[in-house]
């Protein structure tokens, strides 16, 4: 009996571990959230058109939706373009410090060095470091963007400034699970941001529903078998025949095993079902809530951002 339980527990643990493994990455979070993705795409588009203020708002709103570290790069680069290198430095440093092994370390270090150079160049003589950068830039008029050659691509080649932005789901390519892209977004990719995602979400919802149903059936089977097993006690007291009692005992043990299996498999399926349903339904709900909030406030620009409070 102990062996059975051990086996069932191990199986259940394995299933649950799989559930843990299915937890999405930060990159996936924005890529799977149509609202976040749209904001990022919008920000990239605005960035390309050198509408840095609007781009900054878009990236910030995307970040409020999903705290994806890659978005810090976009915000940092936008701030850099807005000639606010001190703020950009803060964000690049935050990007590097937030993750133990950030996927775009080299590129961001490059951006950081660039921002530091600009900060040093624009600082009054005798002042060094990034923290001394005036924070008044937030309220002041935005300077004209620097020349395109000041932006660096991840490869270190001088690229147009808009090529060094983080895109959670670059066009034409499916994002790797743990590898968010630093690439240029195209307007075409903005047009249909979430259609494949919706299909996947639907699939998750269906799978989740089936798993949940099967899980409930499994647990009910477990409960039924347990009830039959409980009735064995009454049956035992109704006969004095040893062989009949042994048969009842054998049947009760089979019921016990079936009941345990029912509980274990049922519970695992219920968890799997809930997780799958959460994948399928939760982003949609988030999206709907966000739209509702926007509608209540009258304008998307009225949404407040709290962005670490450093700028």
């Amino acid at each position: 009996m102990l062996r059975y339980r051990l086996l069932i527990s191990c199986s259940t643990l394995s299933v649950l571990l799989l559930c843990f493994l299915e937890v999405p990455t930060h990159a996936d979070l924005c890529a799977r959230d149509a609202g976040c993705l749209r904001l990022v795409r919008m920000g990239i588009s605005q960035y390309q058109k050198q509408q840095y203020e609007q781009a900054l708002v878009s990236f910030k709103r995307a970040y409020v939706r999903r705290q994806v570290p890659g978005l810090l790069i976009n915000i940092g680069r936008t701030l850099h373009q807005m000639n606010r290198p001190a703020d950009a430095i803060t964000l690049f440093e935050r990007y590097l410090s937030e993750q133990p092994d950030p996927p775009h370390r080299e590129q961001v270090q490059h951006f950081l060095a660039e921002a530091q150079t600009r900060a040093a160049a624009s600082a009054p003589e005798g002042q060094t470091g990034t923290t001394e950068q005036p924070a008044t830039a937030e309220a002041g008029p935005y300077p004209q963007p620097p020349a395109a050659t000041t932006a660096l691509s991840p490869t270190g080649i001088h690229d147009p400034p808009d090529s060094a932005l983080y895109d959670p789901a670059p066009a034409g390519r499916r994002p790797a699970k743990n590898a968010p892209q630093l690439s240029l977004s195209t307007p075409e990719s903005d047009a249909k941001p979430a259609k494949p995602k919706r299909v996947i979400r639907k699939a998750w919802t269906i799978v989740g529903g089936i798993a949940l149903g099967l899980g409930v059936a499994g647990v009910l089977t477990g409960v039924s078998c347990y009830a039959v097993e409980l009735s064995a006690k009454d049956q035992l007291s109704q006969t004095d025949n040893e062989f009949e009692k042994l048969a009842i005992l054998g049947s009760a043990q089979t019921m016990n095993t079936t009941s345990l299996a029912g509980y274990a498999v049922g519970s695992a399926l219920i968890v799997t079902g809930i997780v799958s349903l959460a994948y399928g339904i939760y982003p949609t709900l988030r999206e709907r809530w966000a739209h509702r909030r926007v509608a209540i406030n009258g304008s998307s620009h009225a949404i407040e951002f709290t962005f670490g409070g450093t700028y």
Partner: protein
Amino acid sequence: MRFLCTLTLITLAVSSCSQDIHLTECETHSDCPPAADGSMLFCTSKKLCVIGTPSERLCKDVFSISGGPAPPDSIAIGALVTSSGDDRLILDSFKLGIEQINAHRTSGPPLALHICDISATAADPLKSMQLLVTQRNVVAILGPTSSRDVFAIMPEVINNHVPIMSPSATSPKISEIKDGTQTVDRLFFRDAPSDTYQGPLLAQQLPHPFPSTERLALLYVDDEYGMALQQAIRAASLKQPDIILSYLEPTNSPDEAEIQRVAEAIRVSQPDYVIAITNLYSDTVVKALASLPMSTKIIMAEGGRSPNVLNLIKPDHDDPMNQHLRRISGTAPAADTKSTVYQDFANAFKIKWPRDSEPETSPYTAYAYDAVYTVALAIGAIENEVTPTQVSQMLSRMNSYETDQRRCHIEPDRKNVVEVGAMKYSIGVEKVRDQSGLAVDGASGSLCFTPHGDRVGARYERWTINTDQRSFDSELIE
């Protein structure tokens, strides 16, 4: 997400704990309440309160080849015997037969005798039968030795189609066993003759005509054997008993108070003749009847012809007990003690079991020897896998009898005769395999069966007790 998983794990752990139902009822026998009929329940190794001896203590003895364990591929035959009666000699005959047959089986695995002592409780015969069928996969049963036990195991025999071969169950009721309204054939074999033959013989022991001034008492054991035999006597006798008494026989020990009570009732009625039909505890009944006046004649059936009765003999010839024993006479099934087959059997028995009583002490030693041989011949004749049904079919080939069903039909050239004995086993197997219409030449005489399984014909003797030689004197009744 993690919360959900943790919650599930906790639920699982709790549900696993809740699953742990302890289906136990006892630690010792004293924890078990009495059964609905007041009988005692026993605590088994699985801690269940059950009626009868726990199965782990039943049928523990397996005999195949003397001194060695039964090979795993051996063919299992059950033996239902009682340690409290006279079955020791019957069991000795079974073992002798098994040993001889295994020594002469040229093909196929050896036979293994799974011996069950069914005397401890009234439930043990049926339990042992169930155990033999379900766990030991026996192909046939030797025994039971009493008619009561035959009826006890009857449902299991019918349900599982496992044939039995009883060497000493004589109740005429066995011939009438039915499955509902259907006659049951080829299952209840017995090489002991039915008491339909013995009833009239016992009645003949009374004087004819019975003096009108004399009284007759009939005492019988209240079981299937006693009931049937007393009915047969009353049906055959012109004189109906003036007093009829019965007593019960508990399975594991005699109820001496009950026996004393009926003996006293007989003494008070002052009969001139007493017919006593006894079973397991004949010695206790004989001892109780010693209080009757010496003028009272006592006639007994085969129960009185028991080695236990001989143990009552005192050293002094004129001891009142010896005088009492000398006035007892009776009838019993007899063996053909002058035949070569019997002589060979008796010699082998004495060599094999030198410390036991003489095989002549009980007629059933020869019947038991024939029983094991007929079953072994049937098993040996089966060419493929041995099954209970095939054993039944082969046993039913020993069916050559005269149309009046009083004796077996033996062809002049004896081509249809199968002889019992170690040296004749292989030839016998060939005959049973090849043909039907056979008769067996056994230690108990010529042997053949009706379609139901009853022995055709019978050989009886009139016996008395020889207190000087501590034996029974007997003469054949023609």
